[in-house]
């Protein structure tokens, strides 16, 4: 917390370490018996979970319908590509914008709520969008999905890179992920981010020190939806298609699980850890038993019961117990600033 008065660094060691670790993934992932596409999935969902944690961990607003924004981004990417302009940047922007608009619509109805009522309203809205995606067959392809979504080349003024291979796509997603981590890191330390954090702790006091709480809650949801939609757009590219299932309630539950298991409530990097843990569990436990979700679910229950701070919380606890002399009881985590 000491850096609070001086300001947080723009780029941290943890950030660089995470980037480098991900950047090395395509070099070894096949050697450990996994496959390149898994890396793409993890990075996309890590981006999505980071965006989601803005709402859950940072603003303390339990959204259980976030899949809607991810899915809308995926459809918007495909539709923009098919009907408007097959340009990567344009389609990503369309995905982000469409999800942000959906976020705005939801925010208008729920931003005066918090807690369980907020959660119920987000579920209801999530279901509405999911239902529309299934029923609007002429636009979304219904349950068959929206197919033939191309992996568009990265065009810059002077060169163009093809994203057809999973490795190329991985590095593209990594660049987006890096941009998102820098932006979110700045955001949580900015005046806006600190006010949101204050609102999470005490909405009434925040109003009585002069903040329009409704507007901040709405803004956070819209921002989160926008970034989730961007992740959804990349997922449409990865899958070459967009399906309604990512918008369903149980897919929305996955991102909640990733965020909580990873430790999004106590750590900036929790959602990233959680996304990686989720997909690794799916593939590693899934290789042994088709009931992998049973085991992952059990882990989730155990974590929530005994270590609600998640994997990042376990790690922080370990670091503290090593730093502190044995006779002194461990100090409570400094939670006021995301690390």
């Amino acid at each position, binding site marked *: 917390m000491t850096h609070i008065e001086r*300001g947080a660094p723009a780029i941290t060691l943890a950030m660089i370490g995470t980037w480098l670790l991900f950047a090395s993934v395509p070099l070894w992932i096949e050697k450990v018996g996994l496959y390149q596409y898994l890396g793409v999935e993890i990075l996309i969902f890590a981006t999505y979970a980071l965006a989601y944690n803005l709402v859950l961990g940072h603003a303390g607003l339990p959204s259980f319908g976030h899949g809607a924004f991810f899915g809308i981004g995926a459809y918007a990417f495909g539709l923009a590509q098919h009907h408007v302009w097959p340009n990567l940047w344009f389609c990503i922007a369309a995905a982000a914008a469409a999800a942000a608009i959906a976020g705005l619509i939801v925010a208008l109805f729920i931003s005066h709520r918090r807690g369980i009522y907020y959660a119920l309203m987000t579920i209801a809205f999530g279901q509405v969008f999911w239902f529309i995606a299934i029923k609007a067959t002429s636009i979304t392809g219904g349950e068959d999905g929206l197919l033939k979504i191309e992996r568009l080349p990265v065009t810059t003024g002077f060169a163009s890179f093809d994203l057809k291979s999973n490795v190329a796509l991985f590095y593209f997603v990594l660049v987006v992920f890096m941009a998102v981590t820098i932006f979110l890191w700045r955001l949580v330390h900015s005046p806006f981010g*600190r006010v949101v954090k204050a609102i999470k702790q005490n909405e009434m006091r925040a109003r009585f020190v002069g903040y329009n709480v409704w507007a901040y809650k709405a803004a956070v949801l819209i921002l989160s939806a926008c970034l989730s939609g961007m992740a959804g757009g990349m997922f449409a590219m990865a899958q070459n298609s967009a399906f309604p299932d990512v918008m369903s309630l149980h897919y929305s539950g996955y991102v909640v699980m990733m965020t909580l298991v990873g430790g999004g409530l106590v750590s900036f990097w929790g959602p990233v850890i959680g996304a990686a843990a989720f997909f690794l569990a799916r593939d590693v436990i899934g290789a042994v038993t088709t009931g992998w979700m049973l085991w992952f679910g059990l882990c989730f229950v155990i974590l929530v019961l005994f270590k609600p701070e998640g994997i990042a919380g376990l790690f922080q606890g370990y670091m503290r117990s090593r730093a502190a002399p044995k006779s002194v009881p461990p100090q409570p985590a400094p939670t006021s600033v995301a690390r």
Partner: protein
Amino acid sequence: MAIFEARELHLRFGDRVVLEDVSLAFEEGKLSGIMGPNGAGKTTCFNVLTGRYKPDRGRVLWQGQDITGRSPQDIVRLGVARSFQLMNLFDEFSVFENIAVALPATRSRSTNMVRSAYADPAVADEVYGILERIGLADRARDDAKSLPYGARRALEIGVALACKPKLLFLDEPTAGLGADGRARLAELIARLKGQLTIVVIEHDMEFLFSLADEISVIHWGQVIARGTPAALKQNPWVESSNLGRLN
């Protein structure tokens, strides 16, 4: 002329009349007290004056301007801040950040999503200025929730001061404090007196009578007496009630 005025406020919750024809006026630079038994409507009255509730009838005037029914955030921006009877801090923030987030300087930058929130040295100066006033400068780095009760009461006032108010409403600042803590808080409020207009709700009569320039007594949702402490001591109602019993 009164800087803040309430005229004929009425408020009902369902069929219960909570405020009935309440008129109050607070003079600029003075410390006014509001007293009355539990459930008399004192805190409700504060809640109407600071925008938490809308009155059914009546008007609230700040520097002659009608602010009836305005939102709390609007009223704070006009220069009217309040503290709370039940502790209302940002518990996970440090003492420093509890103050810093409430500063108008932070508020004016609060749409900024990129810059560090409190990196400006002027912000730290302002925060430490307020922490000096409430005697918590040496605890700036501690989490608010780790503070002892008396220090939390002081921080409660500090957060309201951070809004840079011209008028400060204090809702039972000594609630739950022992004699020692009360004395320290009285000292703090005595120091603030004269720097800005203050209105205090208080149960502790000794506390209020020693500090206030003028006191209004609220009972059954009505103002039943008003005057200087000296005059109120002669008031037969105050004298005969437990309220007026001074140690």
